[in-house]
């Protein structure tokens, strides 16, 4: 993709920018599936030169980062066909390759400084990433461009972290074309200055509408930073920002049909292209049907065979809107909407009760040839694993008969880092070969730890979220690239103590002490004297006094 872009630039007749400038590029891809759901993928790419000031460039340079990826996701209904960057698990996922000998601080110190700096930049509580939930995977992120002898990898995830507009605003401020809208045309009439919560003056980022994005079934906001150094002093930082939103026009409209438009989904129009882009900005639209629809809007798109999409180009300073209307607009909710990925992973808990349990990971390989995968599991320390219970069973995908493994398929490598309570998590990296057309099931058992009274979260009976397992699929041939799949997030309920016990103890002891003290104090201090019968006049309610003859009288 980058080479194609470079060729287009070289063929231009226009004024070229100097080498020290930063360049940027953006694309919007709208992909509608047969079920009616539209996945909008905003992709922004920037490269920042050496002397320019950019928050992510400062962070990358200050902490010696070679590559870093951070994603904020909410929702599990991700369509993996429609998303080019892949589906991410809910919550925050962060991994970074850091140089070993940068400045004088160790990788661990810089890792915690990095999480705090990112927490400040994105207004998210990333400071909860501590050594207690960080891992150093050995064979899962084998990226070709980073030299693993010079850099170390750190990975952490916070599955319970919620994303909202508060995170989207600083994220969109990192885009060069993004500021609050402040229309210059109305400058004489100050009262008419329109005001948007966030967004930009131009480019595809002008579609950002927090109400639409955070109403989506799935939304994921990610940043990838990589530094490329041609020499020791000349380094450029490449920043990729992606926002994936899965909107559902069938749910949103009253007609419950598949027709949609940008105004309908986002409530806005695109305010022209961003003037900083050297290459033209394209909006690609992929539709589930090949015919039986028509495009609304002033501009009509051009079909591009290679990308299998209809292409619109944005013009400078011209408002843009488009829509699609179908002749038969009923959504197709059948099996065709389901994912047809070759390799899929599912993970769930087994067992019952709050004392022990098990985890079952099911990986299916629909491909005819065997594939090598690496499964990375980072489990918190309060899940006490029993590695001797790790079992593997392989079934055929359709006939469900158990396959016996032979040949190269038997090769398995297990790297296991046992957990140290309150210091580090347990990390399992299992490299295995999946036979063609098979389902492989891994199971293992664990005990649930009884954690300290103060370590429980506010809603203790909800349980703890465990980060997703990462399945790295290694390339089968030279032309393929490795890719990653994320499994589901597990919710593990730990045995909870009775939180009212301290109150009960205090109340009971105070009561006992008070009763005891009162009685003993009275006994010590008060002098008991008997009453003379002669002084007592029996009243009508004093039933305990015996009638006595007083001086013989009755």
């Amino acid at each position, binding site marked *: 993709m980058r080479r194609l872009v470079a060729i287009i630039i070289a*063929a231009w007749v226009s004024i070229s920018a100097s080498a020290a400038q930063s360049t940027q590029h953006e694309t919007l891809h709208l992909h509608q599936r047969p079920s009616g759901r539209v996945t909008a993928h905003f992709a922004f790419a920037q490269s920042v030169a050496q002397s320019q000031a950019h928050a992510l460039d400062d962070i990358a340079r200050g902490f010696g980062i070679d590559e870093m990826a951070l994603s904020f996701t909410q929702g599990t209904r991700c369509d993996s066909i429609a998303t080019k960057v892949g589906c991410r698990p809910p919550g925050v996922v962060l991994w970074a390759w850091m140089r070993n000998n940068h400045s004088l601080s160790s990788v661990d110190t810089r890792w915690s400084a990095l999480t705090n700096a990112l927490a400040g930049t994105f207004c998210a509580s990333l400071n909860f990433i501590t050594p207690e939930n960080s891992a150093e995977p050995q064979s899962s992120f084998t990226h070709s461009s980073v030299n693993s002898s010079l850099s170390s990898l750190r990975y952490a995830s916070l599955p319970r972290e919620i994303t909202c507009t508060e995170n989207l605003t600083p994220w969109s401020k990192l885009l060069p074309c993004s500021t609050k809208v402040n229309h210059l045309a109305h400058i004489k009439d100050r009262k008419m200055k329109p005001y948007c919560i966030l967004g930009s003056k131009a480019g595809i980022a002008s579609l950002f509408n927090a109400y639409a994005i955070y109403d989506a079934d799935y939304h994921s906001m990610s940043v990838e930073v990589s530094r490329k150094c041609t020499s020791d002093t000349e380094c450029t930082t490449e920043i990729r920002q992606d926002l994936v939103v899965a909107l559902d026009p069938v749910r949103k409209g009253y007609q419950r049909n598949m027709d949609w438009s940008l105004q309908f989904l986002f409530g806005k129009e695109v305010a022209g292209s961003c003037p900083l882009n050297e290459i033209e900005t394209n909006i690609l639209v992929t539709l589930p049907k090949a015919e039986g629809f028509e495009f609304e809007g002033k501009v009509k798109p051009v079909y591009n065979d290679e990308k299998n999409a209809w292409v619109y180009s944005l013009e*400078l300073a011209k408002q843009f809107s488009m829509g699609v209307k179908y002749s038969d607009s009923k959504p197709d909710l059948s099996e065709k909407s389901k994912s047809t990925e070759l390799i899929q992973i599912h993970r769930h808990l087994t067992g019952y009760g709050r004392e022990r349990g098990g985890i079952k990971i099911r990986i299916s390989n629909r491909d005819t040839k065997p594939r090598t995968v690496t499964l990375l599991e980072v489990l918190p320390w309060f899940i006490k694993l029993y590695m001797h219970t790790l079992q593997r069973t392989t079934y055929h995908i359709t006939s469900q008969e158990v396959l016996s493994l032979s040949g190269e398929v038997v090769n398995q490598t297990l790297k296991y880092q046992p957990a140290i309570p309150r210091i580090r998590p347990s990390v399992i990296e299992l490299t295995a070969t999946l036979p063609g057309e098979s389902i492989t099931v891994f199971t293992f058992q664990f005990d649930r730890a009884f954690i300290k009274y103060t370590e429980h979260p506010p809603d203790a009976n909800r349980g703890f979220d465990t980060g997703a397992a990462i399945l790295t699929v290694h390339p089968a041939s030279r032309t393929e690239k490795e890719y990653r799949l994320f499994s589901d997030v597990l919710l593990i309920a730990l045995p909870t103590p009775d939180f009212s016990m301290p109150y009960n103890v205090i109340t009971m002891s105070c009561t006992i002490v008070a009763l005891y003290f009162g009685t003993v104090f009275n006994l010590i201090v008060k002098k008991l004297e008997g009453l003379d019968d002669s002084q007592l006049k029996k009243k009508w309610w004093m039933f305990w006094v015996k009638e006595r003859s007083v001086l013989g009288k009755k």
Partner: protein
Amino acid sequence: MSSLIRIQTVSILLILVALFVPVWWSTTQVHRAVLPTDQIRALAAAEAKNVFHTRVAVRFVSGKGQPKAVAESLQTHLNNLFGGASFHFAVRADASTEETQSTSGLYQLRIDCGVKNIQGEGSVKLFEDRVVSLQTPVECADTESIVAQAVAVVGGLFLDERADFARISGSSSHNNDDIRKVKFAPEYQLIFNLMNADPVNLLVSWDIQAAIKDYFQNFVDAVEKLYDFKIKSQTKYFTSLPIDPEVINAGKDGEMVYCLRPHHLPHFINSAEWSFGGSVVSTAPPLNFVVYVPPHAQSPLYIMGHDHGFLKTNSFLIPQWGGISIVNPPKMAPAVAIHENGTTLAIRNVPPKWTLSSSDLSDPMHIFIYQMREILGVKTVGLGSTEQLLPGFQFNYESSSVGITKWELDRLARLTTIQNIRNAVNTLNSLITLIESMEDMILGSTEHLLSS
């Protein structure tokens, strides 16, 4: 109860109280480490005794005259003049052929005696690198009058500084210069910002690296021993002002000119939208210098001074923050870009581009250097008091090519030192006052601090 039992009970109770109350007292005492309070209080008094030892080297250019006698007499007179406050002078005589290197704290006085200028009087010239030359019509043998003139020259150079030190060490009143100055830090982040208000109609870029290398780098190198600067640049787009400039029909053909009055200027910076935060990684305070290019709808934009005339420099300084310079763009026609799209040629609108080259930026850069001097607190070294003592003399000043002369640099170093000492003493004293006022506060162990 019999009285014996009563006496026994009460006495046992009293014995227990007498035993356990001291135990309770000592175990519930707040741990307070011992602080050197007296030493800190004595620091304030010792501050007045801070004295800069300054060396002066006297040289007769022509070789005639008695440098040693002049030097001794000059030293005595100068120390009498300053009375041991703030400055102590050590004057030595140099041979006329010796070239002395310019080092901090060593100043050279070159005396050229027996020379008359046109009016028959002498002249004093202040060179850039710590040299002052005195050309006097008095004969070289007349040591006393030469010494009198030399005292006027050298003393006059340092009298202003002594007044400054007295003001700083004394009361805490601030004048405008103090408020303009940014707080001292050994490292600053210098960020040069280009604000492009309307990139859709004009896309501005600048060759800032070359401009910094041509104009600013020398200044940065000159103040190297005091400050470390991390220089960065950035361009911000769609930056429109939060205020509306006034429209004036001025100029020929009644063309519209936009202007900003002085009361608009505090609201110029749109701090909500334009993020000037500095780096997330470093704690060095940021100084921002902004080149603002107004949109076509608001250009040409000028700043009006208090006297209702447009400012020549079209710039202004924000104290302790940085400076802003407005550069008006030329009118440019819309541009198109043509590129090959397979077999066809596609044409699309692109914004016209305007690049500010290093020579275009020379005016803003010079203004920024001047604003930088104001922000750092550089004070000009002049011979104001000398002019009164030596009437009829001509006074010349050599200006610096880098933006700061060595005299000014030394003066800045001394001023910063005195100010930092004052701040440190103030802080320590107020800390001690605070600690003494809160008697229940725990003070941790200070052993590791006192040993360092």
